[in-house]
């Protein structure tokens, strides 16, 4: 990825905003995933390990399939690949469309955990 010093002409760009990059090269310019969702804590799980060996898959896609052999949240996949979450969402959308991964979205605000889960969190934290 290319990094260049932020120019003064751009509203987002200054030292605090970080480097200027071309993160969407990997997605062919696509910014939005083909599928909605992919919460930061949605768990991604790949199907068969042989899927990752598919030579037609671009390397980043393949790496995602490899990492998701066990359930991994979207945020951790992005950190592991050192890619922006937005980019990872587009790649995951591709994999989802090809049936290579399943995505387990977390419960929405209206279905937040039962109280026994909150009790488990408190006792788990106390035991830390």
């Amino acid at each position, binding site marked *: 990825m290319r990094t260049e010093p932020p120019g003064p002409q751009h509203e987002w760009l200054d030292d605090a905003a970080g480097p200027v990059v071309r993160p969407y090269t990997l997605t062919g310019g696509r910014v939005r995933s083909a599928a909605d969702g992919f919460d930061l804590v949605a*768990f991604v799980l790949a199907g068969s390990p042989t899927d990752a060996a598919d030579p037609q898959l671009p390397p980043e896609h393949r790496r995602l399939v490899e990492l998701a052999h066990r359930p991994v949240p979207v945020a951790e996949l992005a950190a592991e690949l050192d890619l922006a979450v937005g980019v990872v969402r587009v790649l995951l959308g591709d994999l989802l469309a090809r049936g290579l991964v399943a995505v387990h979205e977390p419960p929405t605000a209206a279905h937040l955990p039962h109280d026994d*889960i909150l009790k488990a969190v408190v006792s788990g934290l106390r035991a830390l």
Partner: protein
Amino acid sequence: MDSVRYDRTGAGPRIPLALKILVAGGFGAGKTTLVSALSEVRPLQTEEILTGAGVGTDDLSGVEGKSTTTVAMDFGRITINDDLQLYLFGTPGQDRFWFLWDELAFGALGAVVLADTRRLADCFPSIDYFEQRGIPFVVGVNCFDDARRFDLETVRQALDLDPHVPLVLCDARERQSGKLVLISLVEHVARQRGEPVPAA
């Protein structure tokens, strides 16, 4: 949505439940420090991208001249058990990135707002944000070494905090201290639902 809904009864590997907790507060209030102190793994970073092409853009082809930039978000993990994990997300510290908060806050269990008594006003926007959206939060007063000590009631008045919102002193560098802040948050969430967690 065609993705699998949350379901722990299906075949295959069990999918854990991940609960999101936000760590907010002004610049330099100790958000990253708290996430680092509590995380069982080296805190990770994820980035969101801001495109110069603007919000709502689907495709950057043809607008190669537009710049993009990224905002880093720290996050950490606490495993409660095989089925339950907490994810702590430090919110981007600058006001102009508010729109990223909406995504972070979606489905979040609650939030910790870190306050620095030397710059108390810096945490007002965070408090306003969570109050307006009805997201349960606690305020942790990060005790910096060189900060004057105020009693909690004075801080509560200065923050104009509702009486039911927990306000705790903490040291964001200390895991045990951060842990107590998280416990007070989860207890607060449980109380708000009318099912208080019994004291240890």
